[in-house]
């Protein structure tokens, strides 16, 4: 029955996001006719569409972790700072250690950051916004401590491959994001975890009474978010062959939250969709790329983003009867 419900529900939820993505892609095609051109060069695909996927990879990675956190009625403001920390670790170790060590250290740091957030939220009972604000403020300082305030560069081709290389023609960041998406889907949707996360987000007390280990799940979800952020940080570092603790992942937590919200997951917890969060990330990136391609000044980017957020928000507002009712004026004022 649940499967039936899902089958009926998901397409109806997903259509608005997918239509939005298609509309934006079509708009990009209008402003730049060669938008859909894809060519093969040196065994790697090139083109604006591939670029959208490639540039969107870090935010898509963050949104995979963020959607789980938000489904638990939490929020993770620290992911941008965690990206900076993990990128700094990866870049400083890259030239002196083998790739597995570098990855283990950076991903381990991401897990540790998630553990800290999860500990504050689940064990100390601190509000998620505040709990993750601590690491958001201090994390960038820690990242600068690791890089000693400089922009650390590296030459290791192994790590650089993760940012600039390609697998089967696709850029590595895209492959990593797909891998993370599939892994997360398998773990979450393939088991009862999905139900437990939705239950905890819907009503933590009822979920705990029903025998769900809400604390353990909360910690695990924040750690997963930290892991996704670490991977995003590694990709961002590998892409620029260095780590800039000041700017790596700056404000990307907001983009990730935005992607999740565009993806239709409510900030009040409960029902969530990982795939649509990634679609949300792609919508944001397609918008960014489109504005760049159109020759509009990049300054318009934020205004367009704000308008899109507001539209999506109003569409999701509990006050509006349906997605297509559209206008707020249709309803009597309270």
């Amino acid at each position: 029955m649940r499967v039936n419900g899902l089958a009926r529900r998901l397409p109806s939820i997903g259509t608005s996001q997918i239509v939005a993505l298609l509309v934006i892609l079509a708009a990009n095609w209008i402003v730049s006719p060669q938008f859909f051109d894809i060519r093969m060069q040196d065994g790697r695909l090139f083109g604006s569409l591939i670029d959208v996927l490639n540039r969107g990879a870090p935010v898509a990675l963050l949104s995979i972790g963020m959607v789980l956190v938000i489904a638990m009625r939490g929020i993770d403001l620290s992911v941008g700072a965690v990206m900076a920390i993990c990128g700094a670790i990866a870049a400083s170790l890259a030239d002196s250690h083998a790739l597995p060590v570098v990855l283990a250290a950076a991903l381990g740091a991401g897990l540790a950051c998630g553990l800290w957030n999860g500990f504050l939220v689940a064990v100390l009972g601190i509000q998620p916004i505040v709990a993750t604000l601590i690491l958001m403020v201090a994390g960038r300082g820690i990242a600068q401590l690791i890089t000693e305030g400089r922009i650390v560069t590296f030459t290791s081709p192994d790590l650089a491959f993760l940012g600039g290389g390609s697998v089967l023609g696709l850029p590595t960041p895209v492959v990593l994001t797909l891998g993370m998406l599939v892994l997360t889907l398998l773990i979450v949707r393939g088991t009862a975890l999905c139900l437990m996360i939705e239950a905890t987000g819907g009503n933590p007390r009822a979920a705990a009474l029903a025998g769900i280990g809400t604390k353990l799940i909360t910690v695990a979800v924040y750690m997963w978010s930290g892991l996704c952020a670490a991977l995003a940080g590694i990709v961002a570092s590998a892409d620029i062959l260095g780590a800039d603790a000041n700017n790596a992942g700056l404000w990307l937590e907001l983009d990730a939250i935005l992607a999740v919200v565009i993806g239709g997951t409510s900030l009040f917890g409960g029902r969530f969709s990982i795939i649509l969060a990634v679609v949300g990330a792609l919508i944001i990136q397609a918008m960014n790329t489109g504005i760049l391609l159109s020759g509009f000044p990049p300054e318009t980017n934020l205004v367009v983003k704000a308008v899109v957020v507001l539209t999506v928000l109003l569409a999701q507002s509990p006050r509006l009867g349906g997605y297509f009712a559209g206008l707020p004026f249709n309803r009597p004022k309270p």
Partner: protein
Amino acid sequence: MKRSPAASLLARLMPVLATTAVFIAGFLICSAAYPNFASLRVVMNLLTDNAFLGIVAVGMTFVIISGGIDLSVGSVIGFTTVFLALAIERWGFPPLLAFLVILAVCAIFGAAMGAVIQYFELPPFIVTLAGMFLARGVSFLLSTESIPITADLYSHLADHAVRLGGGARLTVPAMIMLAVVLGGMVLLHLTRFGANVYALGGSRTATGLMGINVPRTTVAIYTLSSVLAGLAGIVFSLYTSSGYSLSAVGVELDAIAAVVIGGTLLSGGYGFVFGSFLGVLIQGLIQTYISFDGSLSSWWAKIATGLLLFAFIAFQQLTLHLARRPRRRPRLATAGAAP
């Protein structure tokens, strides 16, 4: 209930007292490390340098006590400085008229955010996030350059200061901030509006059932926050004599941190304007210490602020935990021994 009024007042003021103690301890540590630190001049500079943050923190205190959050304030400051620079330098507005216009624009902006939060039942976090993007985006559209403001009023206001001896100057930004802090304390603690703000933070539903006009209060709170952010923008433009669309990036986080360090509960319903003022001063103290030291790098400020945040939040959780425990037992005791 059983406690004497003085004791319960003391318990209520505990977090602010703790913040005060931390500020005094921090100041003593700094003074012990650097003999020149303990001077009126340093204190006055602390007020001037953090004036805009102090003003924003007062507005943020109202928002957070009411159970909301306002992420847009940093962008509103940036927008205000750009608007002022353009209005005064390019469009030929007299500065005072420009101030009035920008405060009105900010009021409308805040009221719109409050209305969206109230009437569409959307989370303040995401609505003010959209407001943050919008305000920053519009200021980028206005201008991406840093524009110097050369109006006479600006140089007059920059020179105007109450001299306190020893090189200490109580500057105009500092005076504005102190006035806003005092005004905020009066508004929050002595007026009906202030009481409504606390009530909203306690429970929206109960507040509505009590007959308080919840929509009007919500809109007023976000209007106040945006107007104060606009005022902070005016002060910021006075302080830097310029307008730049990238100014005050991330100030919302500093303001939220100051409010939390000041003992206000982020879940709403409890807090003091004076605590936020001290929170701002503590952050300023950390910055001043680092600039006095010279060899410490700026990132230590971030780490220290993060640690302080953690310490204060952990302290709050502890006091909440302790406060919840004994209250159950006395209630049973008083039930039997009621006069």
